[in-house]
């Protein structure tokens, strides 16, 4: 791999995405579209976690 990636910053921003989506869901009350779109966002955040955050963790970054 030639290019270096700023894994640390990406991990920080992925954590923020999760926090934001979870807190949005929390305040949504009985608002189906917000809840269900947050679920979709969180599923995609998880894809970022398995692709970036987990990799960063084992690489010590």
């Amino acid at each position: 791999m030639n290019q270096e990636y700023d894994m640390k910053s990406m991990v920080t921003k992925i954590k923020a995405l999760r926090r934001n989506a979870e807190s949005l869901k929390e305040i949504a009350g009985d608002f189906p579209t917000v809840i269900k779109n947050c679920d979709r966002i969180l599923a995609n955040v998880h894809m970022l976690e398995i692709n970036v955050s987990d990799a960063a963790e084992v690489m010590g970054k």
Partner: protein
Amino acid sequence: MSNGVYWNPVLETMPREKLRQLQLKKFREIFTWAYGHSKFYHQLYSDAGIEPGDLKKFEDIKKVPKMEKAMMRSVQGPGKPNYPYGDILCVPLDKVTDYRQTSGTTGQPVYQADTWQDWEQGTEAYCYAMWAQGYRPGDRVFLPFGYNIFIAFWAYHYAGEKIGCEVIPGGVLNTEARILKMQELRATAMGATPTYILGMAETARGMGIDPPKDLFIRKITVAGEPGGSVPATRQRMEDAWGAKVYDQVGSTEIGHWGWQCTHQAGLHVNEAMYLIEIEDVNTGELIEEPGRRGKMVVTTFGRMAQPCIRFDVKDLIQWNARQCDCGRTFRLLDGGIQGRADDITKVKGVLLSPLAIEEVVRNTPQLGHEYQVVVTKKGDIDDITLKVEILPEYRKDEAAIKAKLTDQLRLTTNLGYNIEFHPYESLPRSQTKSRRFQDLRPH
């Protein structure tokens, strides 16, 4: 957006010792999840006296009991909890968003539950494959498959969208209509079973359409049957379409764990998302070295609704000694899926793999794509009949072709066959998984 070689340049080139660390971390996570959320897995592991704290190092993974399809079936179905999934389910039923089932080729189907996150993960795994096969935004991808209860090419559809390709669902159209639609829309890629890919080319030619010349397909992903990793079959497909053909392997219970990249050097295992172990069929010993065939045991990382942990698939595989020129550190399998442990059968006292016959048939240019192998018993003696289609222009050469086939089959399989020639296009064709091997001996 970068058009780089890798979908994930970090994971796909990760040093192997780091990949091992990642696999241990992910194995612990899915094991702990299943232990805590599925009665089926909790019972299985409690009976074996193993719990999450016991998984301290990579070698501890082999202490975890394996699971088989029959075990899944035994806890699923009517009268069982969490209908139809049974106690293997790890989430409440209202978290399940997707149902699929196995084809039931080897018995009662397995019902597979997925949450949306699981479904995303299956899509993600397929993105690794398609990106490695050169799919990019701008590709116009045609899917000639029946969108239904089987996993088939669903993930290919979603992964195509995610990558940014334009996806054309060719669902309920018949083969002729699909060909005309591909021509009209100038589709550049498609995914189907090897049998259907070969059959479509035959149909196209019957319509006066020569696929390499009159269509625009330049990439094909095949799955569902081993043909994509059988060199003679892949060559036939590539010649018939004027396209590169790439194998992709997976299953309903596991997901999409392996694929050929554009170098076609073997099947890459997506080791960031799956753990593939190879086990000696007789001793159960784990095989790490290349070139020794064994049974595949697979774990899917992070599939939460219905985990797949140390699943004894009974597919036969072997590691390849090569490192692929693509630069990925994911290990390669040699020759893809080389058969099923329960397909390898003794005939006249000799172990016979149906795939060995396919390689001979598809390497014989005077024959059509289809074939069937039927094993019967005449008195106390096993009898094998190979049914093949002879191309019309070679009917006059039947005797010579038969002699050549007999020699090749004896060399490859150490067995003698009754060879039956059938008219071209007369043997059954299938759009889904083809079963070409019939063992009709009384058991």
